[in-house]
């Protein structure tokens, strides 16, 4: 009941967006379907005349059908970029198989005697096709179009991943935010659309052959019109933003930004987190959300806009350790402290760039960094029976590099042995491993500790106000109290949300901070 109320509230608040997304969704479905019919029906007819080709063509269409939709979009993006083009093309490919197959099946289902009689009476080949075969194949053909339509309404939700809009925007936002109401807000209209189209075409299918022909013709007129819905002019502005679904939905993401900076006049599209950087690089969009230490910032020449009003929560990286480790090996304290405040945002970005784009080994990256900083010491010879420090890391490059940094320092400066347990999946797995003693330490982020692991009441979060020092002292105190775990000193960088622009464009427009951006947009 509560969910239902929340759902209606959500729809009410987002009515404009809901309408726009529904129209886009119908547009995407109809546009792709039109292409599917325009190619699929003639292809099906061709195969009915040249059955030798049928297995090959149906095989290819069948293989296309089995490619997971996300993967298919992934393949198409390098060729077609982001936006409606890859979405419509992918949907078109999915609609091909049912349309070709049913066209062929429909034509093959026409009794041979009827065709023979028609030819014997003196109908030309074209007349046999138009007056006999097509009308009689139409019910089966329409069933194929119906199948394709329902498939496309469903798959069109994925269009939200490539900035093509549609009802998937709510769904993926909801998934990213673990917000069931938001998921339903997109999923229910999508399901309703699918059912409505299914019922409509199901009704059409039951019509007599003569009526079916008229409806089929009407459909051919209606599809481009519906597809054209997608082309309705949308809000435009000086810059276009491309945001990941999570960023659009979460309070400390776009909504917070809009509130604090008055960031209006910034039309945005939603796309998959993995694609936002590419979209900015290819100038499909101008402003994106990202993480402030991502290697792609350097690789693609992007610029992080300074969050001068501190809307994004601080995510400073800090090693979290079991206090027993430092008690048993006091010499470790000084060794671990060597990295305190040594790694700035740009340094971490550079290290990530080496891992993600130059594909260097995290261990090599770590060693090279220590050498540059004069902290490198060759590993001491292993001592038999030395106790082992177990280092953990989450499953992404930044964490691997940090774990290797600590491993090198410990090996070079103590007699302790090191075991790295990298790639421990997500936050919870690392945290539980640390609590249970499976690992002795791993790098965590203050924001994650606060919002994911401690999950304090919103009032508490508000009171901290996003001040880095306040957040750190809060998580440090609470971890000590609740889990008996120790947060050491920050490494220096803040891997938080960031607004990014292409460096060159930012330079030209004189935009260095989010305030600059807001000012530019309102000029």
């Amino acid at each position, binding site marked *: 009941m509560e969910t239902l109320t929340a759902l209606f509230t959500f729809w009410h608040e987002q009515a404009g967006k809901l309408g726009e997304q529904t129209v886009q969704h119908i547009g995407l479905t109809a546009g792709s379907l039109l292409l599917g019919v325009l190619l699929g029906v003639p292809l099906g007819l061709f195969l009915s005349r040249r059955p030798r080709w049928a297995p090959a063509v149906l095989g290819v269409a069948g293989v296309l059908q089995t490619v997971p939709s996300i993967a298919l979009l992934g393949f198409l993006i390098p060729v077609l970029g982001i936006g409606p083009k890859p979405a419509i093309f992918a949907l078109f490919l999915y609609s091909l198989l049912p349309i070709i197959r049913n066209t062929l099946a429909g034509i093959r289902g026409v009794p041979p005697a*009827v065709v*023979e009689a*028609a030819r014997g*009476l003196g109908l030309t080949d074209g007349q046999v096709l138009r007056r006999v075969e097509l009308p*009689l194949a139409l019910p089966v053909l329409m069933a194929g179009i119906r199948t394709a339509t329902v498939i496309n309404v469903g798959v069109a939700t994925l269009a939200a991943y490539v900035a093509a809009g549609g009802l998937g925007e709510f769904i993926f936002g909801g998934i990213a935010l673990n917000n069931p109401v938001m998921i339903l807000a997109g999923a229910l209209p999508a399901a309703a659309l699918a059912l409505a189209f299914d019922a409509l075409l199901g009704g059409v299918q039951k019509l007599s*052959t003569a009526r079916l022909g008229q409806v089929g013709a009407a459909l051919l007129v209606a599809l481009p019109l519906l597809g054209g819905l997608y082309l309705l002019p949308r809000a435009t502005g000086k810059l276009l933003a491309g945001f990941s679904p999570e960023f659009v939905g979460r309070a400390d993401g776009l909504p917070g930004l809009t509130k604090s900076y008055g960031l209006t006049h910034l039309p945005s599209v939603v796309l998959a987190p993995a694609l936002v950087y590419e979209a900015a690089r290819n100038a499909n969009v101008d402003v994106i959300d990202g993480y402030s230490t991502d290697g792609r910032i350097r690789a693609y020449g992007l610029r992080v806009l300074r969050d001068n009003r501190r809307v994004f929560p601080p995510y400073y990286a800090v090693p979290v350790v079991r206090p027993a480790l430092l008690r048993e090996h006091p010499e470790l304290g000084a060794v671990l402290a060597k990295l305190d405040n040594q790694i700035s945002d740009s340094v971490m970005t550079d290290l990530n760039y080496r891992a993600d784009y130059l594909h260097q080994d995290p261990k090599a990256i770590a060693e090279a960094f220590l050498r540059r900083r004069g902290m490198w010491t060759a590993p001491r010879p292993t001592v038999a029976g030395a106790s082992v420090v177990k280092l953990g890391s989450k499953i992404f490059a930044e964490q691997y590099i940090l774990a290797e940094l600590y491993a090198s320092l410990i090996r070079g400066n103590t007699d302790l042995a090191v075991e790295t347990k990298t790639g421990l999946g997500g936050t919870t797995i690392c945290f539980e491993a640390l609590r249970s003693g499976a690992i002795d330490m791993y790098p965590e982020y203050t924001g994650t500790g606060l919002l994911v692991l401690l999950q304090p009441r919103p009032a508490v979060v508000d009171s901290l106000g996003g001040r880095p020092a306040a957040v750190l002292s809060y998580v440090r105190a609470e971890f000590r109290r609740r889990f008996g775990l120790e947060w050491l000193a920050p490494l220096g960088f803040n891997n938080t949300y960031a607004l990014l622009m292409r460096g060159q464009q930012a330079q030209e427009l004189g935009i260095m901070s989010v305030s600059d951006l807001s000012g530019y947009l309102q000029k």
Partner: protein
Amino acid sequence: MPQIPPPVIQVSHLRKAFGAHAVVQDVSFAVAAGETLVLLGPSGCGKTTLLKMLNRLIEPDGGRIEINGQDVLSQRPEVLRRGIGYVIQQVGLLPHYTVAENVAVVPRLLGHAPAAIVARTKALLTRLHLPAARYAGQYPHQLSGGQQQRVGLARALAADPPIILLDEPFGALDPVTRASIRHEFRELEELRSKTMVLVTHDVTEAFELADRIMLLDAGQIQQLGTPRELLFRPANDFVRRFFAAERLALQLRTLTLGDVFEANEAEGPKAAFRAGTTVHEALEALTGPAAAAAPFTVAQLMAGFGEALQREEDAWKR
């Protein structure tokens, strides 16, 4: 000199092979105006292929077909077909067309006036015992098999083509319907003047409908002649064996009172018995519940029939 009308269909040295299998081998024949030629033979003898080559549903590999003196290959196939009625075993009515629309297909293709088409459809349906008021608006699936075949026949006749090709037209019907529709077919005024080529594997049907029969086997003509010639003057052993099972029935249907009795003896008091009446018909008339008065008894008839048979045998052996 009496003028002999040129043949309507003239076929010479026709050949057709599907892959390595020769289906029709060097077949030549002619069909005169108003004649009914029956193509008869076992399954796979090439009779249907031969028929379909006449309206170019199958294109021959070699040879020549002339219809009304014109090479069929010189005409567009669909134009050729619109001038030739075509009836097939499975009828092949267009299931999404009404009975009237089915009948009107060819006249519409030929651009006849709509009013004329309606009148013609109505007249034809009525003549085929399918009153237009009741059946014109029905769809094929609402009709019985016999009714469907009548519509098929009406459709073939709609544009009044001088030639009709029929491919086992009664083959899919049950024996009773089949006999009655065949009877109607024979009596149909529309068909009297038509040149017809009919394919069947039913010997009785062939004897009942044919002016001449072409018996085919393995794509070759075994014999082409009147039913009587095929029955009493078989050209080879195949022809003889082909009729073996039904020989007596065929003989009864072939020999007439004129063959059995001396000319004046056969003429009875009633029109039921004339020189052209077959022995089978005479026998039916004599033995029915309302037996007609005849100038001969069953015994005399059968004795005469036996003698006539003997005469035919002797004549052939000589």
